[in-house]
């Protein structure tokens, strides 16, 4: 339906030291989910795992630390080569 895929340039983003391959034009959340990253942050109070829920920047479930800045809604920002991501929040 949507035509060919895979012709875009690839970029490399970093998640807590691990290299992840993404496509130019991906949102950060999509790139991570597509690489089987499911846990984006841990909740403040009960320290539970959270991942994308709305994918349009309204629910904040996909928030991560991006290049040192916390609470970034990864579903509405594009990947950039060399971007550094971190899972936000402490685990149990």
């Amino acid at each position, binding site marked *: 339906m949507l035509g060919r895929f895979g012709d875009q340039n690839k970029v490399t983003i970093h998640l807590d030291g691990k290299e992840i391959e993404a496509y130019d034009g991906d949102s950060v959340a999509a790139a991570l989910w597509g690489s089987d990253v499911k846990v984006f942050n841990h909740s403040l*109070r009960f320290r539970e795992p959270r991942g994308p829920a709305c994918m349009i920047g*309204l*629910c*904040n479930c996909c*928030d991560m630390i991006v290049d040192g*800045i916390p609470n970034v809604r990864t579903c509405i920002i594009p990947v950039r080569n060399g971007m550094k991501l971190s899972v936000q929040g402490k685990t149990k």
Partner: protein
Amino acid sequence: MNEGECQVVICRCEEVTEEEIREAIRKGARTFSEIKKITRAGMGICQGKSCQRLVNRILAEMTGRSVEQLGFDTPRPPLRPIKLAVFKGTD
């Protein structure tokens, strides 16, 4: 671990549980604003976008009012989180 129905969170951001919201209503909270001030539900980073509907449903059930009658709170700027440092450099 969360066990039982009332340990389910209603406010996803501040992780206010259903039981805490019901307790606030039992103590006299009658509007979303009041529940917000007591429990912090709706004060989190999404500012009630995810939970206001769910809280209103519990309010309606427990107070016998319809959701129509409950109304919604008034948002204040900023509508999205911004860094304080941003105010130093206006475009």
